[in-house]
């Protein structure tokens, strides 16, 4: 089955991103195909490389980056949501006159159309939120 995932909450405060990760990993290991992971609302905070959680805790951001590398996942941060919350890649930083970017490896920033397209192209779209 071809699935996509929407994640609506940031890391650590809510379990949404953890559960989405576990679901995605299990589905991929089971041979299913992931069309896209879309991060919306505070979910865009899953895509900052500046997070430094304690050593003895899971690193939610790095875990997504690693999974993306292993399975060539498409991790998309909503541009409008990311702008509000200070998540930027080099292009976005330049466009908005900022002197730094903070996007984590394996993530990209794009529009909400990517979420709608995921709904159209996938057999199932699963939301993980509060």
């Amino acid at each position, binding site marked *: 089955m071809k699935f996509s995932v929407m994640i*609506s909450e940031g890391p650590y405060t809510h379990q949404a991103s953890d559960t989405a990760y576990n679901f995605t990993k299990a589905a991929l290991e089971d041979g299913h195909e992931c069309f896209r992971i879309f991060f919306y*609302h505070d979910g865009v905070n899953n895509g900052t490389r500046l997070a430094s959680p304690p050593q003895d805790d899971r690193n939610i951001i790095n875990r997504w980056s690693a999974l993306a590398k292993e399975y060539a996942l498409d991790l998309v941060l909503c541009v409008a*949501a990311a702008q509000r919350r200070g998540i930027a890649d080099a292009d976005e930083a330049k466009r908005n006159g900022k002197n730094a970017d903070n996007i984590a490896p394996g993530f990209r920033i794009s529009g*909400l159309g990517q*979420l*709608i397209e995921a709904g159209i192209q996938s057999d199932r*779209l699963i*939301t993980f939120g509060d």
Partner: protein
Amino acid sequence: MPETKKFLYVNRKAPYGTIYALEALEVVLIGAAFEQDVSLAFLDDGVYQITKGQDTKGIGMKNFSPTYKALGDYDVNKIYVEQESLDARGLTLDDLLPLTWEDEDDDWAEKDSIKVISAAEMAKIMEQSDVVFSF
């Protein structure tokens, strides 16, 4: 061209206090360009999103409720409001924004977009939808 799917946007939260309502509306407006079969559902505190007379001066936030009136122009004209959610909050259809659309197949007659339905009917609409976004 991709196939047409039935999209349902479920709005469950109050318009202010959290950003979900505003960002849900942004998805609906972008999604309207994809020519899918779109419906909106308002239930729980989500019914407050489309109430009349919203005044946000006191909280320093933008009142985005006028945007809902533009939905008809985006061909988003199936708006379902759950009766039980209205009842629980002492609201009636008269408390809601008059959301309308113009039917080009009926000499551009102005028609109501809002349908008040029961929770059981809402469940059926969810079941019949291909893609359900819950905000």
